[in-house]
């Protein structure tokens, strides 16, 4: 872990200090946003109140009046939760079959699934608008849930596949000896053993759904509009509303940033498709 380098006194102090400075610089914009969210709109643009000011909670109290925050938040929660559940329901059986009964085609299917992720969304924008409007699905929760599931399905399958692959096959075979059917294997062996992997896949898919900003912006107007759409709609407050905008932004990203802290490791596996360990 640690570099076994020649530890001089200087390097023992200087490098950690530098590391802290870099980390604080990267965190600064978030900290500044949180800080500003406790200022009134008038104070937020005054340089003299940059770091010392009288904190107020009014921006958070007025989120509903100012932005109708909770309606967008509700949509974000509904679409992300259901998309995560649906993704897992489809992905778990698929990865299970691929990990424990691989056929010659499995590798190709996995690669093909990944390649769907590389299709630029903009290329199919109009057909999606066209189809969903024709089917009466435009701006519905159902549509957003489906789209979010589809774009995250390859990542979920890949992550689960890499977890399931590490479970010894003997255990499954022992289960079959004991007369377990497929559903029994999944319930009695796979889910208990791969619980951690499934949970972190769910967490990561949820984060991606929450932060998605292409389809949720382009395929909604009001009914199913998520927090991305809300923020995007307030792109240029002209300095008048920094306080309230910060509050609503903090509320939109806060829970996810905290969730993200818990799945750093899984992120590596999920985003590199198991290629970096």
């Amino acid at each position, binding site marked *: *872990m640690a*570099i076994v380098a020649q530890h001089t006194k200087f390097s023992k102090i200087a490098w950690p200090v530098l*590391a*802290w400075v*870099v*980390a604080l610089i*990267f*965190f600064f*914009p978030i900290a*500044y946003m949180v800080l500003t969210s406790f200022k009134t709109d008038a104070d937020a643009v005054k*340089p003299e109140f940059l770091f010392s000011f009288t904190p107020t909670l009014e921006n958070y109290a007025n989120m509903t009046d100012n932005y109708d925050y909770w309606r967008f938040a509700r949509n974000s929660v509904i679409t992300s939760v259901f998309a995560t559940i649906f993704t897992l329901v489809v992905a778990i*059986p*698929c990865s299970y*079959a*691929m990990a*424990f*009964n691989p*056929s010659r085609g499995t590798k190709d*299917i996995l*690669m093909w699934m990944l*390649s*769907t992720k590389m299709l*630029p*969304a*903009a*290329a*199919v*924008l109009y*057909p999606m608008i*066209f*189809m969903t409007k024709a089917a009466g699905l435009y701006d519905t929760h159902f549509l957003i849930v489906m789209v979010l*599931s*589809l774009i995250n*399905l*390859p990542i979920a399958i890949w992550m689960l596949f890499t977890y399931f692959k590490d479970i010894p096959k003997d255990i499954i075979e022992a289960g079959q000896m004991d007369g377990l059917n*497929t559903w029994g294997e999944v319930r009695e062996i796979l889910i208990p053993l791969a619980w951690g992997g499934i949970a972190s896949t769910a967490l990561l898919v949820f*984060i991606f759904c929450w*932060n998605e*900003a292409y389809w949720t912006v382009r395929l909604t107007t009001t009914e199913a509009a998520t927090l991305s*759409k809300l*923020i*995007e709609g*307030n*792109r240029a*407050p002209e*300095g008048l509303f*920094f306080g309230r905008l*910060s509050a609503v932004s903090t509320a939109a*990203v806060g829970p996810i*940033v905290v969730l*993200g*802290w818990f799945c750093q490791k899984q*992120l*590596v596996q999920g*985003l*590199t498709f*198991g*290629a*970096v*360990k």
Partner: protein
Amino acid sequence: MANRTIPRLLQTPAVLLLLFWMLVPLSMTLFFSFIRYVLNSLRRPEWTTPSIENWRGFGNYQFVWNQDSFWLAIQNSLLIVCSILFLTVSLGVLIAVLINRTFPGRGIVRVLLISPFFVMPAVNAVLWINMILDPVLGLQGIAVNGINDFIDGMRTAPVLGGFFSLWPEFEPISFRATQTSAYAVIMMVTWQWTPFAVLIFMTSLQSEDQQQKEAAILDGAGAWNQFRFLTLPHLARPIAIVVMIQAIFHLSLYAEIEIVSRGNGNKNLPYYIGELVNNNIGAASATGIFAVILANIVAIFLLRMIGKTLME
């Protein structure tokens, strides 16, 4: 395991869903790209419904190919993607090496560093363009004002006054203009994705061969040589993966462009398509096919690399 039906059955829903997702919209795009199809046309109302009778062959492709704005969008896409890649990878390697050691508060440093990655792109863009980069009310404006005030104050100072009176008045930069907004986008995306690179490089550094390193130290290799000849080669593969994953993500960058440069000329390919979709569907579809080709060039390399490690 003689029975292959159940495994196949289990894979079917996922395969069918993705097959639908991949084939249906894309074939429609392909079809629309070969016909004349606009949403509003008083002169030629027959063009407003998609029909094989309005066949245009490669006309849409030719039309798009000859548009200056298409090439500007490609150029901008490449500028943005390449700059972000260069910055995130170099910063990522440096920071990963920096924190790959034990020191007090390492866990907190990691948490602070990774946080930007989880900020939703829309918030990222709104936060940066307004509160940080705004030339008047953002931190940039405040900082530039502060520097100017400081210089002004120093001009009358006894000994140093002469030196400071040589300094010009600084002008804050507006990042909402066509010429500058690409740089704003590069900044904010670099801020968001450097943590991703750091995380991956750090994961990879932890599997670095320590014995080899100790041997190198015994042989008298300096810190630079260790980095150059051991760490960097070890990171070659993760770097390649970070580059390609990011290339795919950033080629379809949208929210940041939409928020920073709506109304100015700084468009990338997805944004350009989004504008064409307001009326000229034929041209939008042809541009979409160009975007698919561009993404595929990147994707082929990535799939090859990942395919190698699969099933290990």
